[in-house]
């Protein structure tokens, strides 16, 4: 017989917002991948479900540099934190898609600024995984792209881990 001392205290309800890309990056660093042999990774089934969802969203083709570039470029516009995050996670490709992510868009931003924002999104963030043009993606190419991308994120994560231990 043993006592189950269960006491949970919430220290910080919100210790920081995470972009879809950061969560995907975290799961990848844990070992999640599109590889069908998933038994070996230390990733739980429920975590894999999140990975499978995120990998198909625009976050699936984002990289750390592109996200950093996006944040720098978007700073010049007066968007709330929630809107910056929404735009990053959805990666709108046209004005119509943006109108609705940004509250009172027509009143706060002149048309040219909206177009500018859409352009900046298009320039800094890669196209979502399923929107890549057919000529670019053949079966073989898709795998090398994902591998290259995985390698890049792993290299970056290794740097990240080194920083944490020091």
């Amino acid at each position: 017989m043993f006592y189950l001392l269960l006491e949970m205290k919430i220290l910080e309800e919100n210790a920081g917002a995470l972009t879809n890309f950061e969560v995907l990056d975290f799961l990848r660093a844990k070992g999640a991948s599109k590889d069908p042999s998933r038994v070996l990774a230390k990733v739980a089934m429920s975590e894999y479900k999140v990975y499978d969802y995120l990998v198909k969203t625009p976050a699936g083709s984002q990289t750390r540099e592109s996200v950093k570039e996006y944040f720098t470029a978007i700073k010049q516009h007066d968007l709330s934190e929630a809107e910056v995050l929404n735009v990053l996670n959805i990666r709108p490709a046209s004005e119509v898609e943006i109108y609705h992510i940004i509250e009172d868009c027509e009143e706060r931003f002149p048309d040219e600024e909206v177009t500018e924002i859409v352009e900046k999104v298009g320039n800094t963030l890669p196209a979502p995984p399923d929107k890549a043009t057919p000529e670019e993606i053949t079966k073989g190419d898709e795998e090398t792209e994902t591998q290259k991308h995985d390698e890049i994120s792993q290299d970056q994560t290794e740097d990240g881990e080194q920083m944490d231990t020091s």
Partner: protein
Amino acid sequence: MFYLSKIEHKFALPPHLLARPIREAIQSELERLFLDKVIQKLGLCISVYDITSIEGGSIFPGAGAPTYQVVFNLIMFRPFPGEIISAKVMSLDADGVRLSLGFFEDIYIPTHHMPYPSYYISKNNTRKWTWEYGEETDEFNIEISNEVIRFQVLSVSYPTIPVEQAKESKPFAPMVVNGSLYHEGLGPVSWWQ
């Protein structure tokens, strides 16, 4: 949709994990306790992000396992009102549409938040919601398929656990997201391209 939440938890570490290095054992137990579970007001726990500190390890009299006090960060899925999320249709009926993210399936769009005007049609074996836009009929449909649907989060609620449930009622959902498809830009992505 994801936030980090810092939690402090005191718990006993089951003896069968004691052969492992302490961090690994604690991570394993935290994952068993929190992963895929809903914490009221914080959302659905996706992952243990990191462990900030581990204290304790003393064994209380009569207990067979050491008790640890651990401070750690969890990645929580907690959509905010106004957020726009892509999902897939899981089921539909006259009361609205139910959407799923794969890892979370309790997203409901009630009738009054469907695009206006739209109608629920259940005919032969097909069920769908049709949006009447302009002269077109039957061009804008929402059906169970692999298509990506964008919805806007209206609210997130955490219903209290019912003491008793009727046998045929839906399994209890500890976290429910209410959404809307009302505005321009929402609904199947194909409608807006």
